[in-house]
């Protein structure tokens, strides 16, 4: 318990979290501070490239693990199953329509790569190692949740939501391609490749993450300001409960697979986090009648800050305790 608190306090006082808080505060105070869209996208390209690349280098260094395949599979299953859990909870806790509930559920099966990145940076600071291929697991967990949600809807008699364009857009969305591509580049070039570009992908990483989270804070804060009315107390409670529930599924999977402490923690983080890029875009195409204010505010305005500030230290503490590290 004490360890959790220390970790949480350390986490809350890191420049990364404080930058996020600054963004939220600036947005709530209606400051005109803003990061240009192109710059925010460039920062995210940098983060995806760096995190994928470093994951690949780590795999090339430690050799390929027998558990890789199983872990990927577990990720896919979690991503597909968590929307069912979320949908059930939403039916109990809220009065959302079937459509809105399915759309929200899709977000919680999928993942937030920024939460993942923030968690790796916390692990690193704490000196806890993790399997390099967890970035590949992250990529594998992006899409299955969307299919689950559409299946939930089609069971309600409302079909024909997917076209082949949407398939391609989901499976080959920019983040997945960049993350996986950089992972393979890191794997192929290994330590030697890392040596060449480490003063780009390693040294400034945390600083870039600060600026990126500043922008995320601005975006989340604006969403909260403009749309918080869209959330009933039940929906809000779901946004805080679901990540914890999800993380428990991730914990179970991680322990079953026998992952390292860091691996278990990241599996929890992936299960706990909710998408706010890939899934919203897919929902706008496939379920345009679902209300974006609900799923965006919930995912980015509630669950993301929760995971970033309290969730990550909690998951890391659990993983540490239960893997006996």
């Amino acid at each position, binding site marked *: 318990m004490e360890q959790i608190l220390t970790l949480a306090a350390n986490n809350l006082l890191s420049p990364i979290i404080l930058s996020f808080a600054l963004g939220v505060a600036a947005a709530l105070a209606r400051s005109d501070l*803003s990061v*240009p*869209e192109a710059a*925010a*996208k460039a920062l995210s390209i940098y983060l995806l490239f760096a995190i994928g690349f470093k994951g690949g280098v780590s795999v090339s260094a430690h050799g390929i693990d027998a558990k890789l395949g199983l872990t990927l599979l577990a990720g896919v299953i979690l991503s597909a199953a968590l929307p069912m859990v979320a949908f059930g909870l939403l039916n109990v806790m809220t009065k959302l329509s079937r459509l809105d509930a399915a759309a929200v559920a899709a977000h919680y099966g999928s993942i937030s790569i920024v939460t993942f990145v923030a968690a790796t940076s916390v692990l690193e600071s704490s000196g806890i190692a993790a399997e390099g291929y967890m970035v590949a697991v992250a990529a594998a967990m992006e899409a299955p949740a969307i299919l689950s949600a559409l299946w939930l809807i089609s069971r309600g008699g409302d079909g024909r939501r997917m076209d082949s*364009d949407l398939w391609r857009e989901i499976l080959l969305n920019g983040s997945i391609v960049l993350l996986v591509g950089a992972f393979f580049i890191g794997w192929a070039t290994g330590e030697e490749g890392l040596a060449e570009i480490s003063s780009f992908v390693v040294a400034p990483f945390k600083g870039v993450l600060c600026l990126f989270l500043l922008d995320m804070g*601005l*975006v*989340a804060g*604006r*969403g909260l300001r*403009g*749309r918080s009315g869209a959330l009933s107390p039940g929906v809000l409670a779901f946004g805080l409960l679901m990540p914890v529930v999800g993380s428990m599924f991730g914990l179970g999977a991680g322990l079953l697979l026998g992952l390292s402490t860091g691996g278990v923690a990241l599996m929890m983080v992936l299960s706990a986090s909710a998408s*706010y*890029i890939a899934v*919203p*875009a897919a929902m*706008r*195409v496939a379920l*345009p*009648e679902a209300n*974006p*204010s609900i799923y*965006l*505010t919930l*995912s*980015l*305005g509630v669950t993301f800050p929760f995971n970033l500030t309290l969730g990550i230290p909690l998951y890391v503490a659990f993983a540490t305790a239960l893997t006996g590290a």
Partner: protein
Amino acid sequence: MQTHQAKRVEITIEAIMQSRLSEALIKAGVTGFTVLPVLGGSGRSGAWVRAGEIGRASGMVQVICIVRAENVDKLIEAAFSVVERHIGVVSIVDCEVLRAERF
């Protein structure tokens, strides 16, 4: 200089639907269109600005399509089939164009 009657159709639509709209327009026999970026807007589904978009997924674009009057109905039906379930606005203006052979 000689000008020719035509119609200028302006469709404001979610960016994510733009490729689908383009395809529908081309299928409807449209010979060309121009896509403008949109900074922000306001409507029944609330106000938004591109710089402040949550998730940055839901920006909009404006597609401008100049056609001969006799083709405007086909165009609008094609556009409507895409826009129908989505937020967005379609407006039509009478215009004159140079180089009519292009449309």
